[in-house]
């Protein structure tokens, strides 16, 4: 009896031992199967390097990890991408350093701050109605005015004829934007002062002449991820706009000095290098007497194949086009030219518009090269070959 009990106990112990051994082997196998995993690391501290104008608190607010947390490499990689997206930094790197004991690490976020001043310009040649003109547009923006994240923007656009009929255009604007009005996450302020002088002569005696100073202010609100609406007032101390388009010869004169404005839009894509999504901006001035102050521009882009993009443009007053663009490869490292894309766009567009349905514009092909450069910002080199059209009485 005693022997039987002993034998049973021994058998049970053997079974337990075998089971434990098997379990240990399985666990070991599982650990092996998962690769040579490192022991879990714990964050002892987080530190910033390279920041001068940006606070470490701001930088670490994008990391989503705190001292005492278990190190999550995926979260760190995501933080690096989030910080890289911000225009504040031209370079972001994250590394670990030894902490006070084995298994405890210090997370170091290293940044190189970028200039808050960003520029963009375009240079092109356009032909229309026996007139060839050089076109230049440029923009300089300070995204961190007064170190307070306000925006100051200066635009200049010009068109100067090199031969043929007079087709001159000059537009200049100074714009101030407070993206967080009174520290609001939703409201913004947009104020600008602009000047335009334009003179377009066409072969049959039609013309558009405009000289205008304008000052405007708008307050807007953002909705959801991409939408906004804004309302304001535009005052024009100097207005001198005369149009005569199409036959029978008829001039309209715009002398409206003030107008409420309403704007709305949806911005879900990169404005310069669109990669997919909708861009829609519309602005309306209550201006019933003259040559055009309604502007709307929409664009929808699809990514096509590897590095190709198809964009449909629609513009009001009448305009539109289909743009095909293609990336010229990805830079392996940030260099002097960081992105490049060629494009070609057949389309039509308007130059002037009046309340009695007079329209003038052109139809043609625009082709060019957009670059994202290290020193000059965004560069657009293009050529525009067009034929003019004028339309009276509504639909062209």
């Amino acid at each position, binding site marked *: 009896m005693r022997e039987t009990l002993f034998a049973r106990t021994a058998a049970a112990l053997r079974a337990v031992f075998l089971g434990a051994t098997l379990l240990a082997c399985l666990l070991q196998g599982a650990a092996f199967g998962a690769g040579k995993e490192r022991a879990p690391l714990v964050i002892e501290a987080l530190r910033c390097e390279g920041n001068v104008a940006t606070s470490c608190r701001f930088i670490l607010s994008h990391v989503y990890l705190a001292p005492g947390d278990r190190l999550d490499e995926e979260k760190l990689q995501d933080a690096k991408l989030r910080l890289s997206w911000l225009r504040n930094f031209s370079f972001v790197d994250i590394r670990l350093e030894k902490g006070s004991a084995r298994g405890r690490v210090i997370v170091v976020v290293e940044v190189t701050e970028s200039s808050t001043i960003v520029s*963009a310009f375009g240079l092109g040649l356009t032909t229309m109605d026996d007139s060839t003109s050089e076109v230049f547009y440029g923009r300089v923006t300070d995204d961190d005015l007064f170190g307070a994240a306000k925006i100051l923007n200066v635009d200049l656009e010009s068109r100067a004829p090199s031969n043929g009929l007079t087709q001159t255009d000059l537009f200049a604007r100074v714009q101030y934007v407070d993206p967080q009005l009174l520290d609001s996450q939703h409201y913004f302020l947009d104020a600008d002062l602009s000047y335009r002088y334009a003179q377009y002569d066409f072969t049959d005696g039609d013309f558009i002449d405009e000289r205008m100073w304008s000052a405007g202010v708008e307050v807007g609100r953002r909705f959801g*991820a991409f939408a906004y609406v804004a309302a304001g007032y535009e005052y024009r101390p100097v207005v001198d706009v005369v149009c005569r388009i199409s036959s029978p010869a008829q001039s309209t004169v715009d002398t409206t000095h003030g107008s409420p404005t309403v704007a709305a839009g949806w911005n879900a894509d990169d404005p310069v290098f669109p990669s997919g999504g909708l861009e829609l901006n519309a602005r309306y001035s209550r201006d019933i007497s003259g040559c055009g102050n309604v502007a709307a521009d929409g664009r929808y882009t699809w990514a096509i194949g*590897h590095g190709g993009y198809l964009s449909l443009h629609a513009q009001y007053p009448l305009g539109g086009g289909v743009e095909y663009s293609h*990336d010229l490869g990805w830079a392996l490292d940030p260099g002097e030219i960081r992105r490049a894309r060629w494009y070609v766009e057949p389309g039509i567009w308007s130059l002037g518009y009046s309340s009695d349905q007079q329209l003038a514009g052109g139809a043609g092909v625009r082709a060019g090269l957009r670059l994202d450069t290290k020193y000059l910002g965004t560069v657009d080199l293009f050529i525009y070959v067009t034929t003019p059209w004028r339309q009276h009485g509504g639909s062209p």
Partner: protein
Amino acid sequence: MAPAWGQPVRGGCRGALALIGMLLLSPSWGAELRISRVGTGLGVVLQGMAYPPTLTKDLKSGLTTHLLIHLTLLHDTRAEAQRDIDVAVHYDLWDENFPMTETADHAVLRSQDFATLEQLTAFLTNLAIPQALPTLHLVSGERYRLQAQILLNPIERERMERLKQWVADNAASERPASPTPTAPLGRGASVPPAVAPPDSVFNRIFQQYASGVDSPATWQQTLVSSPFVLQDLTP
């Protein structure tokens, strides 16, 4: 998810186009993909790899660096089988060495510790993967090519979607660019707003993602072997 070994892959034409695109956009810089027969499998050596200059810094960062090697066996232009191999390496801050692990299908193919950065970079420059693919389903006498797409620190689709949402939320704090009231050049908002994010790893990754790349990466390279017949491979 890569199809299992031997399972035919649809969209061979699309794959071939992608391959041509990859080849055009990512020059090989003299790197070669060499194949040998190792037991019942194909051994692969990615020879003369030229990684981005930032790799050295990444390897010493203490964080894990992943090289995803996406292998595709091509018969003519048709993808016969695929397999993903992950090469993971990190710097051990205390042991001051570089443990490396090659895994595929949740199984470890090989692990090795490198004492110095030089040893590790020499290994990665001529990256050898024994038993990269089994030979079981290769038809005798048929000619194949092997394509290897090498991705540095790829990002899965779910993470990209999370990041995309984060960008969407944060882009809302930017002032949208309204069109220029007048249209001097006939283009409304003809001046592109100078608010595009700076060039960054982020931009490159998102550009790839928008182009339909499943696993965008900070760097990638594609190599294709010379045509081979199984019997001609030397052990």
